[in-house]
């Protein structure tokens, strides 16, 4: 097994210390930081995500894997900055105004990072204007909204209305999720994507950004 494969394996098992040490070792051996990122850390997280989607692993396994990835990223990040590595895309996410639930949203943030995104997590109870301001500030590709309550899910439409009003609707890929949310609701309010779980959200976000870039070029 190569050191890169080992990084991926240990990450999948959530072994943060091993991942950290191996990332350092790989850098010391002169392995390209981008390769360590893509084929070690992100590949490991994608495997965990795929298992999560197939119900082979559950939230705890994702959490420890995400922590292992963070441990590896802490070592790798300065090197990635040096080489000017660009993320797969940029995402702004948060739980909608009036809703204070964040466990699902936090999982989505972890999975997006695991798919190579730069993620700006606005937390809970987020006003439509705050999503938009942050998205404009960081040049986001994706805006992701979460809601756990039937009371708060209609608030998702407020951001879409705001984007329309400002003439910015096509600039962003709007994704929604949360326990009571479903595909027909996404269509009803005009969101681009609904995904039923965090791993699907990351996969869909990645595909959507790639797709948009390929059409733009």
């Amino acid at each position, binding site marked *: 097994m190569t050191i890169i494969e080992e990084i991926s394996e240990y990450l999948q098992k*959530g072994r943060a210390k091993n991942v950290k040490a191996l990332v350092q070792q790989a850098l010391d051996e002169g392995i390209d930081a981008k390769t360590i990122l893509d084929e070690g850390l992100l590949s490991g997280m994608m495997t965990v995500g795929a298992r999560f989607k197939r*119900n082979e*692993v*559950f*939230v*705890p*396994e994702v*959490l*420890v894997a995400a*922590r292992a990835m963070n441990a590896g990223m802490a070592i790798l990040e300065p090197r990635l900055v040096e080489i000017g590595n660009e993320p797969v895309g940029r995402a702004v996410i948060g739980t909608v*105004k*009036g*809703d*204070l639930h964040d*466990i*699902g949203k*936090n999982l989505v943030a972890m999975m997006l990072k695991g798919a190579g995104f730069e993620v700006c997590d606005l937390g*809970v*109870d987020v006003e439509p204007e705050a999503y938009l301001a942050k998205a404009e500030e960081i040049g986001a590709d994706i805006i992701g909204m979460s809601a756990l*309550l*039937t*009371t708060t899910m209609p608030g998702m439409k407020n951001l879409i209305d705001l984007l329309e009003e400002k003439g910015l609707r096509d600039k962003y890929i709007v994704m929604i999720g949360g*326990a*009571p949310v479903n595909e027909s609701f996404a269509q009803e309010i005009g969101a681009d994507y609904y995904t*039923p*779980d965090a791993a699907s959200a990351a996969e869909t976000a990645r595909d959507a950004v790639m797709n948009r870039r390929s059409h733009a070029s």
Partner: protein
Amino acid sequence: MTNRENFLSLIRKTGYERVPVEFNLCPYLQKQVKERFGTSNYREYFGFPWKYIEDIRLADHDPKKYLSYFNPPLAEDGRIDQWGIGHEPSVNSMHMTYMRHPLEHMETLEELKAYPFPDYANGHKDHQRLQVEEARKNDLIALGDMQVTLWEISWYLRSMEELFCDMMEENEIAEFIFDKALEMAKIRAEAFVRAGVDVLFFGDDIGMQHTIMMSEELYCRWIKPRLKELIDFSKSLNPEVIIFYHSCGYIEPFIPHLIGAGIDVLNPIQSECMDFEEICRKYGDKLSFHGTIGTQSVMPHGTPREVKEAVWRNLDIAGEKGGLMVAPTHMLEPEVPMENILAYVEACHEYKKGKC
């Protein structure tokens, strides 16, 4: 049958005469009920079958002693509960609050051991017996509500993310917190049972919308044995006490484990997550059920007729001997039309076994 006889017979699947009505209203809807029906006690007004018996009253509860556990500090309008868990309101969130976990940043067993867990052992219990007597006098079932029992109270204290990681690492922090939760649950359950409650209502969320929250292996390693110990202990004090158990979401793989742990009634069988007919067919010989009327679907979005049909369909599925205390699965939130709540009540009153 008296109300008590009817309830007990329905739960024990030995037949029933009336369908009990039971639901939980958010403060906004409580206000609506008050304006429309002139009552501030909707449970009594709609004739709920049970009365909640108060928990042990702590002799000493000074929330200020927990303030130092929050970093960043708890919001000024934040509230601290008996366990030291912080709850921060938001102007946009009505009755909901954001939870702050006092044990979240602890790294050693020593820090945990120094934490002032609530002293239930030395709390006041005399009111419980009086409240149970009052319930009996009014022909009501006496219920001890201990939801958020072991796993959830542990995660509220520690944060879900930290506790899951503790469990995965098999560390002593998880062991200590779960043992503490069990120790205190046993003290509270004993007080309720000795006061004479008919029902103990336990609950820990272990399901998400479409999947289980953790693997069966992790559940059986950490939670199931403690739930079983709590139920065995409660039933050793009174074998007749009925154990209700709540978990949101999809939990089918856990149901055999819950049966193994000794629960009697499963709540709420969220209709958006599990098919009641299938669950009843598979497990109805070992369990009774409470809930089944979806608060993500038919209660907020259905017509009154659809609410009634859901109630009747599920009662038909359970059968004429009972085994289903039909009710909305969760608290009814502001967007649930009053007409749908009244339709649920009417459906319970109008139900004729085997005729729908």
